[in-house]
């Protein structure tokens, strides 16, 4: 392997991949959501554009690209413009630290499918993903309109509250794995032979509920609750800026699903890593397993959305402060104690 390939081509390729991968996943996810929701509701969903409607999100994106960009006169121009960028940027940036799959061995060279393997990867990812709340509040405030403002306020309270159980449950994984490195966490699950989701089901459940809440998805989609706040914080956005918000939401979902898979379901490891009888499952490469698992959680997102009514604001906050935070604290202490004793 020449130095040029190793030092220039591969990093550039990775950067391109890190931008393309979420985009492709977002397109797939939007299509998946609309199809799955339709099928759950007894109808068909988009099936005209491209094979089974797979090009539907592409058509949407092109159409939005050619839409007029409306900027209200009373809006705060700077904040109004940067907030969609901020939301999109934070989601994409977080993907730099999330592995996209198993390292690939080409001869003596190992191609790692991540840009940076940081010893504090988990921390950075969580931090970056919560930057998006700034985009939301800037957007809601800069619109200078009441419904977006209410949506933004709801969003801030909600995301700030749900950060706590996310942090606490992620910490239990860190305790067990003794690392904050996302790749290392997967390796530990491989060596210990059990996925942390089965080891600590409570952690997983709390993390998942909080993660759904943090991505503003139903039944926690209060900041953009259509039947109450029209379209929430992005009510005043049109055209491409709206598309940024729209896509960032899905990118965020992909990110969270990846994190759940890495932290609790063994990343790219095939199921039953320790059991000999299931060794045939190793035929599929790790990256495929990784994708399958992510897809499952994305499906779960949609499935939940199609099933439940929406929480009310006070019960949403009650849920996190009276149930999730105490539960994650107890869970945290229990894991710490077990870890200390063993």
């Amino acid at each position, binding site marked *: 392997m020449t130095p040029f390939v190793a030092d220039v081509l591969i990093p550039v390729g990775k950067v391109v991949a890190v931008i393309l991968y979420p985009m492709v996943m977002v397109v797939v996810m939007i299509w998946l959501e609309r199809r799955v929701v339709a099928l*759950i509701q*007894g109808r*068909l969903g988009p099936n005209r554009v491209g094979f089974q409607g797979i090009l539907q999100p592409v058509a949407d994106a092109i159409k939005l690209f050619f839409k007029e960009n409306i900027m209200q006169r009373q809006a705060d121009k700077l904040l109004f413009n940067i907030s969609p960028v901020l939301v999109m940027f934070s989601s994409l940036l977080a993907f730099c630290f999330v592995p996209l799959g198993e390292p690939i061995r080409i001869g003596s060279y190992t191609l790692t499918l991540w840009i940076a393997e940081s010893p504090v990867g988990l921390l950075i990812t969580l931090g970056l993903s919560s930057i998006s709340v700034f985009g939301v509040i800037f957007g809601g405030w800069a619109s200078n309109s009441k419904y977006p403002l209410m949506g933004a306020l709801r969003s801030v309270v909600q995301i700030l509250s749900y950060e706590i159980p996310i942090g606490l449950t992620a910490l239990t994984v860190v305790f067990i794995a003794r690392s904050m490195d996302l790749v290392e966490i997967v390796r530990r699950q491989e060596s210990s032979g059990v996925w942390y989701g089965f080891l600590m089901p409570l952690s997983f459940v709390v993390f998942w509920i909080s993660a759904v809440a943090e991505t503003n998805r139903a039944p926690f989609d209060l900041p953009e609750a259509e039947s109450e706040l029209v379209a929430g914080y992005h009510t005043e956005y049109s055209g491409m800026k709206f598309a940024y918000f729209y896509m960032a939401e899905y990118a965020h979902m992909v990110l969270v699903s990846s994190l759940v898979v890495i932290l609790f379901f063994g990343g790219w490891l095939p199921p039953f890593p320790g059991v000999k009888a299931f060794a045939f499952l190793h035929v599929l490469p790790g990256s495929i397993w990784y994708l399958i698992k992510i897809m499952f959680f994305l499906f779960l997102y949609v*499935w939940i959305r199609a*099933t*439940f009514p929406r929480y009310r604001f006070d019960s949403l906050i009650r849920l996190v402060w009276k149930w999730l935070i105490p539960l994650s604290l107890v869970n945290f202490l229990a894991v710490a104690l077990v870890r200390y004793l063993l």
Partner: protein
Amino acid sequence: MSRLRRFLRMVFLLDILQGLRVTLRLYFSRKVTVQYPEQVQEPTPRFRGILRLHRNDQGEPLCVACKACQRACGTNCFDIEGNRTKGAKLMRPVKFDWKLDRCSFCGLCVEVCPTSAIRFSREFRLTGTDKEGLLFHLSEMYLAGESLQEHLCAGCRRGGG
């Protein structure tokens, strides 16, 4: 007992799981969608589509310009004038203007027509790109099928856009 059951329901998220089970079952159930342009849900025999005038088997118009429909109509859709040519037994309409865009599809005109000249058709495709196509004159009241569509949607083929 019921309190305990309620508590267990809550702790193990049983209500949530029950909901997820229902939607998953419906996910795999049969879909009811009628894919319109390819499949059409045929209107029922009594369907109240657009009003059409009819002729008898000899090709003679049935309408005798008695204006019963005009009187029965609550929304002033009709503007009819009749004329009896010398020696003819029956009156014939010379003017029969019908405004589709005023019609409330109630069927009062059909019920009063003594010769069953005016009847509902089963045409539900009533789209035009301008209002001209929604006004019908005497000759156009007999159109049906594709020629009716051409009258309704004259602007559709005209290009522009």
